[in-house]
């Protein structure tokens, strides 16, 4: 399954789709924000493909997760870093995989604690379906359907590969 997906090619296609969407929405000078860890790797690649000079922002959503009371605090939390003001900016938010939509909900809440962005455009490499919240990506690299016991994970950063594994019980 891993070999079927060419991430480089997907990213090229996503770049074209994203640039068309930004034109259509008349968005100029957007800023990029990746969600750790996979989203940051992808955001860095997108930044190069779109020849954007501004450094990207990195979000760690551990302090905004809704499963804190079930699993406790993520022991490997790292600081979020937004090297720019988000107030009034058009933010392109990037994550590797979207499923329930809970990560994106948390990321949007965190973004709003830095300021009030003019807009947020969501880009994800993989859409697994299975949404539990009304959150949709604006640009998707590929839709995947997995069996109930399967999981997908982006490994990287050099090279980026998608690993589909079967959960062992």
């Amino acid at each position, binding site marked *: 399954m891993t070999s079927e997906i060419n991430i480089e090619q997907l990213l090229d296609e996503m770049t074209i789709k994203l640039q068309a969407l930004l034109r259509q929405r008349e968005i100029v000078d957007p800023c990029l924000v990746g969600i750790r860890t996979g989203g940051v790797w992808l955001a860095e690649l997108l930044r190069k493909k779109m020849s954007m000079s501004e450094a990207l922002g990195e979000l*760690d959503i*551990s*302090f*905004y997760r809704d499963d*804190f*009371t*079930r*699993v*406790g*605090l993520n*022991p*490997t*939390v*790292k*600081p*979020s*870093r937004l090297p720019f003001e988000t107030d009034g900016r058009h933010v392109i938010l990037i994550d590797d995989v979207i499923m329930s939509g809970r990560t994106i909900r948390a990321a949007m*809440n*965190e973004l709003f*604690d*830095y*300021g009030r962005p003019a807009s947020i455009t969501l880009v994800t490499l993989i859409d697994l379906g299975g949404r539990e919240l009304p959150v949709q990506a604006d640009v998707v690299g590929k839709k995947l359907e997995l069996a109930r016991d399967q999981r997908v994970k982006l490994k990287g950063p050099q090279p980026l590969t998608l690993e589909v594994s079967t959960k062992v019980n």
Partner: protein
Amino acid sequence: MNDSFRPKQIQLNRYGQLKHFLTLDGLDKLLLTEILDTADSFIEVGERSIKKVPLLRGKTVVNLFFEASTRTRSTFELAAKRLSADVLNINISTSATSKGESLSDMLQNLEAMASDMFVVRHAQSGAPHFIASAVTPQVSIINAGDGRHAHPTQAMLDMLTIRQHKGQFDGLVVAIVGDILHSRVARSQIQALRTLGAAEVRVVAPNTLLPSDTDALGARVYNDARAGLRDVDVIVMLRLQKERMEGALLPSENEFYRLYGLTDEKLGWAKPDAIVMHPGPINRGVEIASSVADGSQSVILNQVTNGIAVRMAVMSMAMGGMTVEKNELASTQAELTANVR
């Protein structure tokens, strides 16, 4: 001491997550590093325009200070508020204990108000441990200083400050100067430094301000400041508690200052890039010269900022570990009830 009474048993849940924070005794390097790393992330939160995250929304934190404190209590309060918890400050001297209510009754009443965490400062060593083990075991307890025993959040904020300035603990020589005998801060600092792998911990003090069993401290003892400060990377000055003078442990403040007070001259004996720390409040001209406290090598105000981040880290980790345990307990009980039916 019997192993089953060791505090580490009650500080951690079965996944090894923190649920109380009472002492550094029994906590390993991995967990202490996790606290420091988590605190690093909270420092970033403190630099935002909205310095608040929703982690402890709906949780109730009660500050129970049986001993006066301004800095520690207010940084705990700010930390809890920045985690979105509701905070209650109980002023013990005007509370029901003065009407004759027992400590246990008061705590159980607070627990009945659905409190999730008590931050406890008490003049009696072991009071937070007693509350966690015997009074309200379902409430997460954070030790904010107990007697001469421990002040673990102060020690961890000092560790965070050292790591920020020195990068790591390997190879570091740290001197703790002053009233070691009465200092819970020194005890916790020595434990933290040893666990995190500092090369050498020294205590610098006259014999009258040292415990009789200096071997048990885990630090090298120096009575002479010049020898004790030679080539150290970090100097920690302790507050000389004026009330100790009455016990005739010291001839005078002036003599203490002459022998141990950190002046520019004494600071010169340490490494040129040594940092100077002090847990506060400072007695200028008693244990430290103003020129040193306000000088370029002083990181005393960094310590205060780091105190909020470290307390946010410890509170969120302990609240997480306790909540996980309580949820498991609740689901087990629900299963048992279902089986009975």
